[in-house]
């Protein structure tokens, strides 16, 4: 008889689903970071050979990839898993909880990994007597402590993943036209989190922050508010999702 191993019994459908989704994202993250780290290393070496020195951070350019790659995975996650989840005898509610949990964790993990890569690159540059200037538009610069760098990356990454879920469910439940027409609303918050804070919103009259920590607190606050709205909309749409009776 074919051995079909019994999986460890999960306590709840949320935990069971989160484990499955997490495993799927982990595999993709392995590929992504393997390629990203190799590309960053090669770019550094090439620049070194060409210029003799390199005073900008190459790793920080992975910020866009680290945002939009998991964003696209979140879209696919909704498309691939929601129908199967319901067919396996679980509620949409548990899918929402598991998907949000996993995607927020993924956003934080990507931010942590990229922060680590940037810091390692910064240390290598420093050891070679080079600078590691950050030329991307963001709140932090090369002198920022690691926790500010982490938060600066984590806010758009988490929002990006929530946005991916939102885009996925709108396309799935409302079709291509609505999915496309609502992109400014579903993806807009990510652009806001990515650029508005970096574009010195915090310097506008009436905005009270004057320190890097204060700026970041404002960015995190805006991100949290946008994230909460996206999460509520994703939850409401998913819990009402009608699945095709004919697959």
């Amino acid at each position, binding site marked *: *008889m*074919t051995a079909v*191993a019994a999986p460890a019994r999960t306590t709840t459908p949320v935990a*069971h689903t989160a484990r499955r989704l997490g495993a799927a994202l982990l595999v993709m993250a392995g590929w992504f970071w393997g390629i990203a780290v190799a590309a960053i290393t090669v770019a550094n070496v090439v620049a070194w050979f060409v210029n003799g020195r390199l005073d900008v951070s190459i790793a920080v350019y992975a910020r866009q990839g680290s945002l939009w790659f998991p964003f696209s995975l979140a879209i696919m996650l909704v498309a691939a898993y929601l129908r*199967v989840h*319901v067919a*396996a*005898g679980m*509620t949409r509610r548990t899918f929402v909880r598991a998907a949000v949990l996993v995607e927020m964790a993924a956003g934080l993990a990507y931010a942590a990994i990229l922060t680590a890569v940037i810091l390692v690159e910064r240390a290598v540059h420093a050891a070679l007597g080079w600078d590691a200037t950050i030329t991307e538009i963001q709140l932090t610069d090369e002198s920022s402590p690691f926790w500010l760098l982490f938060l600066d990356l984590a806010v758009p990454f988490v929002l990006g993943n929530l946005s991916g879920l939102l885009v996925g469910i709108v396309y799935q439940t409302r079709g291509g036209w609505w999915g496309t027409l609502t992109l400014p609303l579903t993806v807009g918050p990510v652009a806001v989190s990515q650029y508005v804070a970096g574009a010195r919103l915090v310097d506008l009259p009436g905005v009270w922050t004057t320190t890097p920590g204060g700026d970041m607190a404002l960015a995190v606050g805006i991100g949290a508010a946008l994230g909460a709205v996206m999460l509520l909309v994703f939850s409401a749409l998913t819990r009402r999702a009608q699945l095709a009776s004919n*697959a």
Partner: protein
Amino acid sequence: MTATTTGWGVELQGVTQRYGDVVALDDVTLTIRPGTVTGLLGRNGSGKSTLAGLVAAFRRPTAGRVLVDGEDPWENERVVPGVCFVRESGDVLDDYSLKDNLAYVSGARPTFSHELAGELMDLFELEPQRKPSKLSRGKKSAFGIVLGLASRAPLTILDEVHLGLDAPSRYAFYDALLADYAEHPRTLVLSSHLIDEIERLLEDVVVLDRGRVLVTQDAESLRAEGVSVTGPATAVQEFVAGREVLATQRLGGTVQTTVRGALVEGDVRRAREAGVELGPVPLQDLFVHLTDPSRAGASASRARQGVDR
């Protein structure tokens, strides 16, 4: 976990389902008895899959109520793990192995039997490492059957799951279903166009036509509503004169005619004297007759005339 489950009943009360202008189900009221094997029959587009989708909480009806084991299944944490709806095309993770798919489904189904899953995987010669996207249509169907039966859900709905299966595999499926049903009674709803193959399994029958319920009845009493008459053409013709003929098959001088209506006193004696044999009515003939569009058109026409008068 191989806990024996008892079946769950289903009740639809005035259920209507619209897709835009299309009415897939029109004011459907019916009951599926718990612990039975019920055939859900109907022509293409009659609303079978829509009905099953509502029961499995894939959709909410436009109007009316759906109750499974006495409760609305929509987002119902108690009910949905006990409703297993397997569709012909399968709701599986296409890019993961069958083994991964089994692990995913079994983790969500409290009554899932790994032992039965293993037996069925062997029976249908499915390799656990293969991915659904790489399987033939028949093998995909077979995997749907594995999930459907091994889940041992109190309410299992199998919608055209035999498509693509060769005849030996289909009969192996029917045998496996009966054997497991006998050991673990539950409610099974089978939707199929191969009525002659599944009719021996059915205890109850629901026939849908254009989104409406034509028949909801136990299979025995439905079969008793007709009779097959076999014998020489002339004798059969005389015997069935004045009865509602559902179907006729000829083989040389021998004719088998299916007529609707129960036998009355003296029919058996008259048949013996006429040299014709009486037998049970094939469900398929009844189904074809009931869902014949020309018959439906004639009925509608008669109804209109009745109104005009």
